[in-house]
């Protein structure tokens, strides 16, 4: 690990950790999945309401560390109102953002880019991606909890 701690723990991350957006269960979701990283204990449930191929609403419950919680919160903000095609593209771009150590991947992800610092902290990538992989599982109706460990 050689990254600067401030690149990882940015103010936006603290803000979303301490005041998570869209946290709590969603009534009558059309899609739902659970994520669990047993080694660190982080758990997240992602709820979606999809209508006409558009994310009408999504919320999350749980999470854990600052990175996992902030990532889940930022994800819900970023995806509300998006089409499923846009969601798929964002999932791919976000994954590249936090895993491409070369930094060559420079997708335009707006606010989500505050999580780019995670790629300098390999042990924490799993925290940033848990909510996203859980979302992915929800869209594919997977019943088994997903993990990123």
């Amino acid at each position, binding site marked *: 690990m050689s990254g600067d701690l401030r690149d990882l723990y940015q103010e936006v991350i603290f803000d979303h950790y301490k005041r998570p957006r869209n946290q709590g269960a969603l009534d009558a979701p059309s899609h739902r999945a659970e994520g669990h990283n047993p080694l*660190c204990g982080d758990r997240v449930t992602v709820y979606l309401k999809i209508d006409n191929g558009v994310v009408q609403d999504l919320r999350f419950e749980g999470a854990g560390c600052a990175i996992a919680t902030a990532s889940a919160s930022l994800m819900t903000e970023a995806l509300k109102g998006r089409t499923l095609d846009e969601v798929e593209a964002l999932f791919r771009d976000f994954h590249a953002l936090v895993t491409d150590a070369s930094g060559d991947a420079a997708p335009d992800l707006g606010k989500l880019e505050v999580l780019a610092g995670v790629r300098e902290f390999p042990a924490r990538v799993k*925290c940033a991606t848990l909510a996203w992989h859980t979302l992915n599982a929800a869209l594919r109706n997977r019943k088994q909890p997903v993990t990123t460990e």
Partner: protein
Amino acid sequence: MKMEHEVLAKPADAPLDVARLRADFPILAERVNGRPLVYLDNAATTQKPRAVLDALAMYYEHDNANVHRGVHTLSQRATDAYEAARANVARFVNARMPEEIVYTRGTTDGINLVAQSFARPRLAPGDEILISAMEHHSNIVPWQLVCGQTGARLRVAPVNDAGELVLDAYAAMLGPRTKLVAITHVSNALGSITPIRQIIALAHAANVPVLVDGAQAIAHLPVDVQALDCDFYAFSGHKIFGPTGIGVLYGKAAHFEAMPPYQGGGDMIRSVTFEKTEYNDIPYKFEAGTPNIAGAVGLGAALDYVRHAGIEAIDAHERELLADATERVMRIPGVRIIGTAKDKAGILSFTLDGVHAHDVGTILDHEGVAIRAGHHCAMPVMTQFGVAGTARASFALYNTREEVDALVAGIERVRRMFG
């Protein structure tokens, strides 16, 4: 391979010369993120002194051969080194004889051996195995497996809010159906030292044999298996400055004699035909296949090292560090110490209000301070304390007050960052 140097007995009350000991551990010169390494994850694994690294190299460079087989010189030297290390282990824990020492891969392997070879043939449906609420998964899951195989029941003696075994409740759970007690000497998650002598005496009064999980005790407390009168004592080499992949299961000779082999293969037999196989004597009956010879030699060197430093002096030094660290960490706002038993070994487990243990771990790592963050393979006890995990600093003989300073400064930095 010969151990040439004489190990001089030190007076028990001589304090450790920590600066000198530190120079024996090459890895302690490492820098992490531009800072000197402060290694406080000794409950996970300990670092290795030069004497152990040299013993491994010497063995491979001069003596390497298979044991108990060839008539050639190297085979004899390898066998001598392997068996000398066994005798060394026997002396270290004060076993009656080297035959009571079985080499394993580690503590987990030793516990599984006892579960399958000692417990399983004795268990009938409704029988009970008694453990405590603060066991490591390695002293829970092997018993769940054997319970599944036999219809026996796993019972759990309670631990109070300080992390101490509730001895009365434990005693009340010992009954005619109890076939084995399996309990830790030191809790890896809480640091509690269990009243192991009383635990064993109470079990024996009810005719129940006892296995002690010594993984967290062996490098920190004096262990005398005869004084304890335990039936089995398991520990890992890598937690006492030895290599990974080597461990020890002490067992009373009468138990080992009566037990069927754990695994079949070479070295554990006396004669084999397709009709009938005669097993070897103890301890070889439990050592199927080519063993971890170099690991055993390295473990022997590690025990020499600890003996030379003096286990009482190590214990005293770590208790001082723990007391200092506890007192200072407690004063940081939002800190909750998990595990406040009266009698504790050098393990400080804590949570920081509003901060996940992994964030604590990442920020401390940035300061060069290595601690463990998570559930410490002891999820049931984490559940009892209502936490998903803790941050854990654990001490060894080479840690210093200055390293406690670095720990405290690191936690204070976390506190400032998270507000």
